[in-house]
Each structure stands twice: as structure tokens, then as C-alpha cells.
């Protein structure tokens, strides 16, 4: 067998599929991906990228179909460029993200229950109280760096507490997600930097997932309760608590930062939100569609299969560009406009199908609380300098967002 490329089986140019000599993980593309996404969509339903010997999809229909076809395009071989069947991953694979049915069905059920709408409803009063405290503090400052002061501050204040963590290392719990997400990319500078920090951060995270480090009334306790009930093992419970921390912090930080960026860029939409608070939840859906906090995850063809009629060989990695799908004009009409009344049902920001984000209810709850309090108290959100994006192999996130907040 020939040597692996980026930890997966080499795939020769399939011929009938358009070939595109590009690097999807070029820091310039990651920082400002819109023209790259448009180029990807214009080339066809599926494109061959020789640099990494992978296929890529970005049109809405092909992306949705491939991403949710868990029988043919599996997650158990990794949702990045490494094929876990051929190479040992950097950490023990997630037992909910990087797994297929029937194992996935069992763990997913436990996590769905722990993160159900009912559970989130019970957290909302606490989210609201914390939002009031943090929003009042940023209003008092006036000029803020919104990534640190709001986007990180809010999830760090509410999420570890919701999980039941008794001690929090704010930097580690934010950075663990970005390490995990950079790891799904190629062996580039971003991934190498993430891997260099991984031992220290992952060790802290793994230790923090132990039962004795958690309260008996949080989301973590619900998961350990499933172990007591025999649905999962105690070791699996610890792994699922780890998933809260990899997937539940950096993603929400990104969602909040991106939301504030959208409103700073579109003052009329902030005004519309202030006039009709029932648009808070639809507005967050539009933020998700417009900014795609997770821009790209991969799947692996587990059998010889096809995408839009083009044959795809077993072992082929397919990068699914969720951000490109969320801006496909064939689906959205005017995708580049940020409209909080769009109600973009079917956006791909939380994925689709059995692997659709299991934490989406709590993410919506956090954003609902924060945006509602901000809309009540802040008349205008204005840029106070250039927004700077932070390249990541899977996350489309801000590094810095200077804002001026003008209260009522």
C-alpha cells in the first residue's frame, strides 16, 4: 500500500470530477472564505483537490446529502483529514462525534436527554441573570473588545457551571475546542500549534471530567446518571463529559462573537431586533447561516459510493464546506445579506441528520439570554476598529472585535 497523505488513503484524480489546485486551509482563505466558497460552488457538485487528495462539496444539496448520509459517509473514520481506520488519532476518538450507529445511537440518546429543551429551560433563569451582570459590566466600559469581554466571558460564566464543574480554567476550556477543531485539518501550522498545546490542555480537561470533580445536579451528573442506570459505562460517561467541553465552549464563543459582528455591520438589523424581541431566536439562526461557526467537517466514504452521480471510492475523504452551503444562492436567494427575519430553516451550521449538533438547544438558550438582555439595554453597537478573524481549520471565529456600546 502506498504512503498515506494527511493520514488518509491517497485518491488519484478521478477524472470526471473537476480538479481544483487550491488549499482550503490557507490562512487567507480561512480568514475570509466567501470568495473561496463561491469558487468551490461554481466548479461543480463535487471537486477534487489534489493538494490533499480529497473531494470537496459546497453546493447546498450535495453538502447536505453527503454530510447526513451516515451509512455511506461515516464519521467513525474521523471528521478531519486523518482516517482513523488507517492511523491512530491524536486523542481517543469521541464516542459521539466520531462514531457510527449502533454505538452512536446509544451515546447520542444519553446526550440528547442531558441537553433536551426541557433541561435547557431549567437553565434559562441563570443564563438571564448572568447575562444581565455581564452586559451591565460591558455597558459601563463603553468601548470593549467583544471577543474577550462578551463572547468568551458569557459561556465561560454559564457553561461550566451548567455542566457542574467545580473549578474552571477559563483559558483551557476555551482553547480545548479550538485545539480539537484545528486538529481536523491538514498538517499545517495551525494544527502543529494546536498539537503543541494539546498535552497540557487535554490533560486538564480529561481530569476535569472525572465524576468527583462535578456537582451532583449538573449536565455532567445527568450523564453519569446514565452510567448508574447501565446505559453507558462510567468511562463512557467521562468521555461524554469531555464532549461537552470540546464542543460546547469555543463554538458558543464563536457564535456570540459572530452575532455581535453581524449586528455591528448591520445597524438596521439591531434596530429591528430591538423593536421586535420575538426575532431574537430567528436572528441567531440567521447568524449561524450567515457566519457558519463550524465552516468545514469531513466525512469518509466507507464503501464505494457516489456524490451527485460521480463515483467515490471507499476510503475517500470528503470535506463538506458547511459555510459554502449556507451561502449557496440556489438555496438562499440573497445569501450575502444578513436578514434576521429570514428564518433559515435547513441551514447547515449545526450539521444535519443523526450527527446534528447535540448541544444546539443550550447554544440557542445562551444566545437567547444574552441577545435579549443586550437588545433591552443597548441602543447601538458600533465598530471601534477592524474586526480580525482567527484562522482555524474548522471554525470561523473572530480573534478581536473592538466595539462601542451605546446604552439606551
Amino acid at each position: 500500500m502506498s504512503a498515506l497523505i494527511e493520514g488518509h488513503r491517497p485518491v488519484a484524480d478521478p477524472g470526471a470530477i473537476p480538479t481544483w489546485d487550491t488549499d482550503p486551509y490557507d490562512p487567507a482563505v480561512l480568514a475570509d472564505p466567501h470568495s473561496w466558497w463561491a469558487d468551490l460552488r461554481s466548479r461543480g457538485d463535487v471537486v477534487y483537490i489534489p493538494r490533499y487528495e480529497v473531494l470537496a462539496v459546497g453546493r447546498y444539496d450535495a453538502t447536505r446529502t453527503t454530510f447526513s448520509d451516515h451509512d455511506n459517509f461515516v464519521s467513525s473514520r474521523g471528521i478531519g483529514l486523518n482516517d482513523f481506520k488507517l492511523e491512530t488519532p491524536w486523542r481517543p476518538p469521541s464516542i459521539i462525534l466520531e462514531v457510527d450507529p449502533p454505538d452512536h445511537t446509544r451515546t447520542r440518546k444519553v446526550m440528547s436527554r442531558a441537553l433536551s429543551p426541557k433541561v435547557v429551560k431549567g437553565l434559562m433563569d441563570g443564563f438571564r441573570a448572568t447575562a444581565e451582570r455581564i452586559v451591565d459590566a460591558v455597558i459601563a466600559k463603553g468601548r470593549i473588545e467583544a471577543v474577550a469581554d462578551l463572547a468568551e466571558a458569557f459561556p465561560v460564566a454559564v457553561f461550566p457551571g451548567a455542566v457542574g464543574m467545580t473549578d474552571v480554567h477559563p483559558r483551557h476550556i476555551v482553547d480545548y475546542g479550538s485545539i480539537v477543531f484545528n486538529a481536523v485539518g491538514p498538517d499545517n501550522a495551525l494544527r502543529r500549534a494546536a498539537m503543541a498545546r494539546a498535552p497540557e490542555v487535554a490533560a486538564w480537561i480529561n481530569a476535569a471530567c472525572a465524576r468527583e470533580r462535578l456537582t451532583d445536579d449538573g449536565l455532567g451528573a445527568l450523564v453519569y446518571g446514565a452510567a448508574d442506570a447501565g446505559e453507558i459505562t462510567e468511562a463512557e460517561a467521562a468521555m461524554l463529559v469531555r464532549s461537552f467541553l470540546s464542543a460546547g465552549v469555543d463554538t458558543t464563543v464563536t457564535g456570540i462573537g459572530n452575532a455581535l459582528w453581524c449586528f455591528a455591520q448591520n445597524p438596521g438589523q439591531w434596530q429591528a431586533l430591538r423593536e421586535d424581541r420575538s426575532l431574537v431566536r430567528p436572528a441567531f439562526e440567521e447568524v449561524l447561516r450567515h457566519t457558519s461557526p463550524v465552516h468545514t467537517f469531513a466525512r469518509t466514504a466507507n464503501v464505494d459510493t457516489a456524490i451527485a452521480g460521480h463515483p467515490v471510492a471507499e476510503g475517500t475523504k470528503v470535506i463538506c464546506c458547511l459555510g459554502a452551503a449556507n451561502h449557496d444562492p440556489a438555496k438562499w436567494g440573497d445569501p450575502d445579506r444578513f436578514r434576521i427575519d429570514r428564518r433559515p430553516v435547513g441551514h447547515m451550521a449545526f450539521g444535519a441528520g443523526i450527527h446534528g449538533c447535540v448541544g444546539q438547544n443550550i447554544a440557542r438558550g445562551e444566545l437567547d439570554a444574552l441577545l435579549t438582555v443586550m437588545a433591552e439595554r443597548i441602543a447601538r453597537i458600533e465598530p471601534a476598529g477592524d474586526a480580525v478573524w482567527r484562522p482555524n481549520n474548522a471554525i470561523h471565529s473572530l480573534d478581536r472585535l473592538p466595539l462601542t456600546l451605546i446604552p439606551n
Partner: protein
Amino acid sequence: MVKVTYVQADGSETTVDGTPGDSVMATALANDVPGIVGECGGSMMCATCHCHIDPAWADKTGPRMDGEDDMLDCAVSEVTETSRLSCQVKLTPDMDGLRVILPEEQI
């Protein structure tokens, strides 16, 4: 194509053409049928696509999926024996004429 009739809580009916393989939830949204929200997009993570299957069709639509009970438990309107999450009911050719009754509220 299979015909699907959605009955609103006020008794009004809408009949649309559905495609085998699509869910009852996606078929409603694609045809602008009110009464179904489908917030999570079909990942069985919310209960905003709650519906009741006309008992005459229950054997065709089959039993609830694994995990569906837990999520139905979060539905806003009353859940009964006929309750399903419409994202988990996939149309098949033998469902032509399916009747779906929608609850008063989803959120």
C-alpha cells in the same frame, strides 16, 4: 408522489404532494404548511415538529424511533399515543393519503 394532508388545530386542512424519502416535517416546511417549526432541522434535538398520526395510518408509519420518546417528553402540547416527531416519519409510497394532525402549539 404521495399526498399528505395536514390538519391544523382549528380543523382546517392542507393537502400537499410529498416525495418518498422526505420526512413529514420537511414536506410541511417545503410547502409552507403552518403548524410545524422544525427548529433543529430534523436531528431529533427539539420537539417543535410534534404531530399526531391519524390512527388509520399508524401501522404504515410504524413505531417511534429510538430516543423519540425522550424528545417528545419536551413537547409543549399534550403528547398522546398517536404523537410522533414529524422529522422521524419518512414518507414511503404506501403512505399516499396520509393524514397528520397538528397540535395547538410547538414552542
